[in-house]
């Protein structure tokens, strides 16, 4: 087990290197110049050149790449060109809303999607199944920005239960910050529950026709126990996979939702960094997100071992 874990961590390094390479060159393929953007329309070419030299943007691309690789190998992701702060600090400041948002929405999605999928599979073809499957189809196809606006209109503007947008005033306490996360979590929870419902349903249908489910029934177990312990117990692997992927996707920043709700999260940060060609921030954020993505996949593989004793490697 330790050997396979070491191998996976080695693979992580390879992935990070590939991501770093691609991110570096792709961001520079995009037209635009951070120095020019920063200085605005009035700047002279000399001003722009001077500022480019300050950031090292005048040096050959491969030299810039090599220097950057050397720095990130030591954990230094450079400084944001615009925010004038270390990239790690910038990312850390923006991590909290994104992390909580991912956590809450996946929890909501699982709490809704897993039971809905089970119910749907058990009463396959009946009214319940049709209603659940129909709602799942609807939820999967609702644009999150639209759902976000509807929820804001209803719960924030009309009823005033939750704040409209933002993440509270600077220095706001945790309860106030969490309050700002309720509506965005609901949006992402609903949208993602659709996928989880459909995966749970498919996985349960697959498992329910197995011989050992019949064996469980032949023991005289109540149907609830047959479904929850014997069928759901073995249907978990694909469900855990989807949950893991959903967490990983959301960690990368739910760009649209963060924008609609004005949340200062990773997704929002990356969007504005791209618009301003803030290379160090774009690069740093994508490398870290890719790293987290791989780590979450690794965690999912470790969870497999817990839910299925047949998994050994």
């Amino acid at each position, binding site marked *: 087990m330790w050997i396979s874990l070491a191998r996976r961590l080695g693979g992580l390094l390879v992935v990070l290197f590939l991501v770093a390479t691609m991110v570096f060159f792709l961001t520079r393929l995009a037209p635009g110049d951070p120095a020019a953007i920063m200085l605005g329309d009035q700047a002279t070419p000399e001003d722009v050149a001077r500022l480019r030299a300050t950031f090292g943007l005048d040096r050959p691309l491969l030299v810039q790449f090599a220097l950057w690789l050397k720095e990130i190998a030591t954990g230094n992701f450079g400084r944001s060109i615009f925010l004038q702060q270390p990239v790690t600090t910038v990312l850390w400041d923006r991590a909290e809303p994104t992390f909580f948002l991912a956590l809450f929405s996946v929890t909501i999605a699982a709490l809704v999607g897993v039971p809905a999928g089970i119910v749907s599979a058990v009463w396959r073809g009946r009214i319940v199944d049709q209603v659940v499957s129909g709602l799942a189809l609807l939820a999967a196809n609702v644009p999150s920005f639209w759902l976000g606006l509807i929820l804001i209109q209803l719960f924030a503007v009309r009823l005033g239960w939750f704040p409209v947008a933002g993440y509270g005033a600077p220095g706001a306490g945790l309860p106030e910050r969490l309050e700002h996360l309720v509506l965005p979590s609901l949006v992402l929870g609903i949208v993602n529950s659709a996928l989880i419902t459909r995966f749970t349903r498919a996985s349960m249908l697959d498992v329910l026709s197995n*011989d050992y489910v019949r*064996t469980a029934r*032949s023991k*005289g*177990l109540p149907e609830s126990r047959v479904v929850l312990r014997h069928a759901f*117990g*073995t249907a978990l692997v694909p469900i855990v996979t989807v949950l893991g992927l959903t967490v990983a996707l959301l960690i990368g920043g739910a760009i649209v939702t963060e924008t609609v709700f004005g949340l200062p999260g990773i997704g929002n940060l990356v969007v504005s960094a791209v618009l301003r060609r803030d290379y160090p921030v774009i690069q740093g954020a994508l490398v870290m997100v890719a790293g987290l993505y791989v780590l979450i996949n690794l965690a999912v593989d470790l969870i497999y071992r817990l839910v*299925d004793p*047949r998994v050994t490697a």
Partner: protein
Amino acid sequence: MTQALLAIEDLEVRFGTEDGEVAPVTGVDLRVAPGETVALVGESGSGKSVSSLAVMGLLPRPAGRVAKGRILYRTKAGETIDLAAAPPDRVRRLRGAEIAMIFQEPMTSLNPVLTAGEQIAESVRLHLRLDRRAALRRAQEMLDLVEIPAAAKRLHDYPHQMSGGMRQRVMIALAMACHPRLLIADEPTTALDVTIQAQILALIDRLRRETGMGVLFITHNLGVVAEVADRVAVMYAGRIVETGPVGDLFRHPRHPYTAGLLDSLPARATRGPDGRRHVRAIPGSLGRAAAIRDACAFSPRCERVREECRTTPPPLEAITPGRAARCLFWREM
């Protein structure tokens, strides 16, 4: 005849399919007495497994249902209940406790994510109302009973860590854990090696003798029937075509299908003109024979077929007490 433990009367099972309803089992009568092994023999699709699932109340839902007939079972408490008509919850409480079943596929019949001990103990806790530790102790006793070496260790093994024969022993331990009075064994040895087959058959037979339970043994293998059964019922196309005590039926089959099955046993292969041994096969296949209503369902494959067979559905005619055949011309066999 002693009082039956199980008496199936005129059972008809129907399945809803996309092409309308089909009846894989019609007019089946069958009795199992305590301590007796009755073999239900037939080829795939003859309705033998469907009949057994009907007894267990495990017909695939919502497609399958008992459309006609009764399945009378005498409980430990001495009352007779009709499993086909009783509330599902009543039947469920008998399952695993009084009526147990072993399935054909030991490789897939056990839950892959639960240990052998957990799977046995689960049943014991439910029916015998033992606590967790006592149930696990009982599970270990059962593994010992089915002759699994190092039972204490095997208790904590998962099915994938065991061989097919070992898993079938675990299935038997599971089935026997709550002292069932009726065991339904659906092709329990078909998926196993020949040497293991013999061990499993001997094990089931020993448990029957020791506990006095009745066994309904479902198989397509007449060799197995000869070894384990007291009485035999041969099924063809959803109907019982012949019944009788095993020795009598093997010596004097009264239905051409039974005779064909016996002739196709490798042990009865005859030497041909070229000096080699030939196994005789029954020509044709079961096909959609269950749909034949106004003729003998076996007539399309029967070597002795006559005109009447194609126009008259034969009744199951009693020959001697305990002996019956569904052939218009059984006297000529």
